[in-house]
């Protein structure tokens, strides 16, 4: 059986400051090495002090993932020599003497299946390595930017309970939605959610693919690795334990040999960071301030808007989409139709173009106007789909319809005239249509084409059926 485990690193990028110092956590786009201080540069004698907000966010995530929360906050030094960590250890957490993870033993439900969470650690991010050739594999030196050094991370580790590429993707998306609902992470930011993916197939050892940047890439990595590992085993080649790197351009994984081996991190409790008690009351106070989580929001959507469970779950998988649905629902009250448009047309159109919800300039008012024009039979569903991209571009639906004269044709005698013209040209099809509903749709399509999608679809169908019956 295929076993997949994920180690997800989440940037605490909604915090104002880094984890242990008061440098800004917002390092993206800043000149290299301009957001540092003695603590995040790792200068001797500098004392780290934890950001209180980071602890609160970690506890919220632990609660959302149904974990047990540690009674004490304890930090560990994880030692290694690497140019991205000047003090030669990372402040992290570890289960060992005098040390423990902030949370463990959680569960996340992914479409009916439970994925166990082994633990959650709070840790600091290392500096950013930039490679002069663009790739770590053929650069003979590394350029270091310490702006990222010391930014807070949560490391969320699952048990190897995931069985396929798609499940892994859904897990990542659900986790992302939880993090966004809790305002723990602005996951739109590049590199804000990275995963190390562990994959083993039957008859092989565990292979780790490091630093995968998105849920789509996690899915691609797993598909690739399962195929590669299975093919190797079929050919009698052994799959040994190794670390690989995901080449996003070529969509392949390649083995990497890192200079630092993992065998001996020499963990010990960080003497700079005395323990901090996490009392039940402290946790209770945080829970009472927690925002609504996606699962609860989906349940509320089913109750409040009477949409299907399926639609509700799709909407809450992306916080921005769920927010847009609720805002639009203030202006338009056929919620089922609204959910349908947002999921099947709006979201799909954006996804097909690799755009994010945040890229859309559509307003809740314009979506409501569009749907009302459809309900009032001012425009046809064809026109709705046709002009949706322009509404996403920020245009007003009423203006588009007026400017381009897209108002639905409801004049029966006009539609009948067009229908008779089409059927005259399509005599064979018209005969066949008597016994084959697909051919009726073909004829309706022809009429729609002639009227640029404006003929009222219900009238058109009635008229076509009537003419065919006369034949």
């Amino acid at each position, binding site marked *: 059986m295929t076993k997949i485990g994920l180690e997800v690193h989440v940037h605490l990028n909604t915090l104002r400051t880094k984890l242990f110092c008061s440098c800004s956590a917002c390092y993206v786009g800043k000149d290299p*090495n301009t957001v540092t201080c003695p603590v995040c540069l790792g200068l001797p004698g500098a004392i780290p002090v934890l950001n209180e907000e980071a602890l609160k966010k970690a506890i919220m995530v632990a609660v959302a993932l149904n974990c047990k929360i540690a009674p004490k906050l304890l930090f560990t030094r994880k030692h290694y020599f690497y140019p991205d960590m000047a003090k030669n250890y990372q402040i992290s957490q570890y289960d060992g003497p005098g040390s423990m993870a902030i949370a463990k033993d959680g569960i996340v439900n992914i479409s009916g299946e439970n994925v166990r969470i082994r633990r959650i650690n709070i840790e600091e991010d290392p500096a950013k390595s930039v490679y002069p050739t663009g790739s770590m594999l053929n650069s003979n030196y590394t350029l270091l930017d310490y702006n990222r050094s010391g930014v807070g991370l949560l490391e969320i580790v699952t048990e190897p309970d995931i069985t396929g590429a798609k499940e892994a993707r859904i897990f990542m998306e659900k986790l992302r939605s939880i993090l966004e609902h809790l305002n723990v992470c602005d996951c739109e930011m590049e590199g804000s959610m990275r995963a190390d993916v562990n994959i083993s197939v039957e008859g092989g050892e565990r292979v780790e693919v490091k630093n995968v940047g998105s849920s789509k890439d996690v899915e691609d990595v797993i598909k690739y690795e399962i195929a590669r590992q299975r093919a190797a085993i079929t050919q009698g080649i052994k799959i040994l334990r190794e670390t690989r790197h995901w080449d996003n351009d070529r969509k392949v994984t390649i083995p990497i040999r890192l200079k630092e081996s993992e065998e001996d991190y020499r963990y010990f409790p960080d003497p700079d960071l005395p323990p901090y008690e996490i009392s039940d009351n402290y946790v209770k106070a945080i829970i009472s301030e927690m925002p609504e989580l996606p699962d609860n929001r989906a349940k509320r959507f089913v109750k409040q808007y009477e949409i299907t469970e399926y639609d509700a779950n799709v909407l809450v998988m992306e916080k921005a989409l769920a927010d847009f649905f609720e805002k639009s629902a203030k202006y338009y009250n056929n919620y089922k139709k609204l959910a349908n448009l947002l999921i099947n047309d709006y979201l799909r159109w954006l996804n097909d173009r690799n755009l994010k919800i945040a890229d859309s300039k559509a307003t809740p008012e314009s979506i409501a106007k569009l749907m009302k024009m459809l309900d009032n039979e001012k425009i046809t569903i064809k026109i709705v789909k046709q002009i949706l991209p322009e509404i996403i571009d920020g245009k007003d639906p009423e203006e588009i319809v007026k400017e381009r004269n897209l108002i639905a044709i409801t004049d029966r005698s006009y539609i009948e005239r067009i229908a008779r013209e089409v059927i005259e040209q399509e005599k064979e099809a018209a005969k066949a249509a008597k016994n084959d509903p697909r051919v009726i749709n073909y004829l309706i399509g022809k009429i729609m084409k002639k009227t640029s999608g404006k003929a009222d679809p219900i009238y058109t169908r009635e008229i076509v059926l009537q003419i065919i019956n006369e034949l």
Partner: protein
Amino acid sequence: MKVIVDDNLIKRLERLALIEIKDVEKEDLKKDLNEIIEFFNKIDELDLSKTEPLFHPIESGKLRNNVESPSLNREEALSNVKRKENGYIIGPSTVE
């Protein structure tokens, strides 16, 4: 835990500390290590079965508010750095 000071240990320490130890230094180092370990072994003479391990002399730490304060400017931050390029620190390659 009994630690045996031998060539294997020296080799391991050499690798962990990323330093090269010359053969002439090895014997001196073994002698020093043995003395250090012996010194710490004094603790084993005490009955500590009823003593909880102490990891921090201070019972409870403090937390910091999530409020920014100014960072160092780049000249200050990089004043100890020998090799630089366009505001970056130059470090060694990280793959073999």
